[in-house]
């Protein structure tokens, strides 16, 4: 059982404060969805937790299993069990998915230890079968010339193989048609289990028709302004974000 505890987190990009005191606890086995209008700090939250150098934590704390991760480099956080599924994943020309993932696993071994090639491919192919991904896929260069759906599939495969404790999924559904959305949802659902905690960041409710969250949080102006179960997402869908804005503005008077 692992926990990711975010306490009163403030994040700035340049001089501008974007996340303004956010607290949230995620345990293994839970799926939390964060919803909110554009520009409210959802992506900033995920990048700051993952350790992107442009996103500066000005105060607050993030603990992974009781240990602060804020002083750690992005790669140390990754190896500690954090995975970020990118909204816009980078292309890595000339590096195949298979080689990239192999390097990522190799980076998790102690110095002098070598990854066993045949065991690696067995494991990779098992995950690909689970996610119904064609074997040829992993010989392509990472994200190079991929369609939106292929990029998401690539992210999900990486997540499956790296077996993180917590996955932060940043607008994983943006720009996807309904088929691609299903791919993502099926992927996450097949990885769902007692050892994985998920923070699902999304603008639209529709992804939550396919991935049923345990908790839904509404984010506005750098804070969580409302939390509830999946019915909150449906209420949002019906009433729109103005409802939250109005209510929050009223509540803070």
């Amino acid at each position, binding site marked *: 059982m692992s926990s990711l505890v975010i306490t009163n987190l403030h994040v700035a990009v340049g001089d501008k404060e974007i996340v303004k005191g956010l607290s949230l606890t995620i345990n293994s086995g839970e799926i939390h969805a964060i919803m909110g209008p554009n520009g409210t700090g959802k992506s900033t939250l995920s990048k700051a937790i993952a350790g*992107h*150098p442009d996103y500066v934590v000005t105060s607050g704390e993030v603990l992974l299993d009781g240990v602060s991760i804020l002083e750690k*480099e992005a*790669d140390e956080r990754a190896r500690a069990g954090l995975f970020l599924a990118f909204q816009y994943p980078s*292309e890595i*020309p000339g*590096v195949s998915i298979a*080689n990239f*993932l192999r390097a990522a696993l190799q*980076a998790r071994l102690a110095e002098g230890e070598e990854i066993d090639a045949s065991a690696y491919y067995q494991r990779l192919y098992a995950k690909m079968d689970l996610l119904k991904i064609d074997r040829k896929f992993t010989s392509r260069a990472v994200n190079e010339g991929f369609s939106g759906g292929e990029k998401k599939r690539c992210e999900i495969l990486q997540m499956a193989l790296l077996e993180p404790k917590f996955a932060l999924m940043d607008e994983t559904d943006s720009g996807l048609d309904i088929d691609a959305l299903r791919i993502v949802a099926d992927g996450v659902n097949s990885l769902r289990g007692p050892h994985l905690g998920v923070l699902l960041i999304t603008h639209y409710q529709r992804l939550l028709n396919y991935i049923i969250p345990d908790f839904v949080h509404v984010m506005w102006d750098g804070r969580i302004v409302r939390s509830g179960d999946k019915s909150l997402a449906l209420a949002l869908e019906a009433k729109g974000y103005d409802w939250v804005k109005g209510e929050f503005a009223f509540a803070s008077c």
Partner: protein
Amino acid sequence: MKSPVALDAPPPAELAEVAANPVAGIDQTKGDFQYDVAYEYDAGTGLSERTVDYISSVKKEASWIREFRQHALKVFRAKPLPTHWATRDLENINFDRIRYYLASGQKPKRTWDEVPEDIKKTFERLGIPEQERKYLAGVEAQFDSEAAYSNIKEIVAKQGVVFVNSTEGLREHPDLFRPWFGRVIPTSDNKFSALNSATFSGGSFIYVPKGVKVAQPLQAYFRINAENFGQFERTLIIADEGAEVTYMEGCTAPKFSTATLHSAVVELVALKGAKIQYITVQNWANNVFNLVTKRGIAHEEAEIKWIDCNIGSRLTMKYPGVVLKGRKARGEVISIALANDGQHQDTGAKMIHAADETTSNIVAKSISVGQGRSTYRGVVHIPKRLRRCKNNTECDALLINTNSRTDTYPAITVRGDRNYVQHEASVSKVNEEMIFYMQQRGLTEGQAMSLAVNGFINDLARQFPMEYSVELKRLIDLEMEGSVG
């Protein structure tokens, strides 16, 4: 034991310096170490007629070679440094402070057991004897001015393949080598080819008889051990009609505080229907001036391919070329250059089309890291009278961080309207987002950059023999690990 026959014996202080810290930096760079070696032959410091005579005398050369050298010295002195187009860093080479000839013996040994202990230790540490056993048809291991070891597998020798150093080649096989020696690259080609022609020592002279296809590669390894030293090997490879050979060279030197000069001349001759593949993986320490002239002549239906991989050195200037002399001859240059902080890789290719239906292909990829600078210079020449010639040129540059610099100077002269030329160039950057993406998957910053670089050259590295592409990847990993702030 012979007594030293030094022209100017080095003062003892210099010898003591040479002995300092033999294992410094072993974890960073495979080649950065040095053992103390007592040289029996030393031409002293600086370059004069006496130096040239000394080299010629200890090699017991024929008078025509001595005259060739003395003439070359005059040409060298007469030619200015090419700073009107090349970097002014060349002016920092102090030709008077360089030692032009250092050797422990005149005759290379045929077995590793006979090689003097310190020199043998050096090559064992570089892994040469092991590679020889595994996958090479023959090895020549040059230590400063002369080959310490030279051997060719019996099965290859029985086919009539000659694989010797330059001294032995010109002395024992003048009928084979003299007709081509200095004909592909004349002494006056440039200032550094003249310098090499005056002071050359070591290198490989190879003759592959008609129709003989050498299955495994022949390899030479060039090791600079001494400080303030100039290495001037001379290589001449002749593939007779229908013959095929692959030659590989590797080079290293320890890190010194002062500059070292490496200035080779490599001439290739591929007669009708022959194929020569010449592979270089250099890993010079970053104080080496590496100024090398490489050119081949491809006769009718012959093929010459240069695979040139330049890592390290302070300044490399190298533009392997092919003169496409016979109908349907093919020339190819595959070039990879990595310029890290304090390094300038000024590399490229020359394709001189001189017959109908000749084709050439140039693929050059450069990586500039930190303050590193890379320059591509290419010449493609197709005169008006020719028909159905083709050239394809691709130059791709990868920049890692904002301080690096890259320049491309393609010079393509195509006359006539029945020839086909294609040129493509690209510059790309390894940006912060890409590094963050890879770090988010658990790779360190250094591993991420290394993977990005390996991806960039992946399609070229695949053309290398397996062992060399592994070595290349390892060298890139080391360079990138060291480049992370």
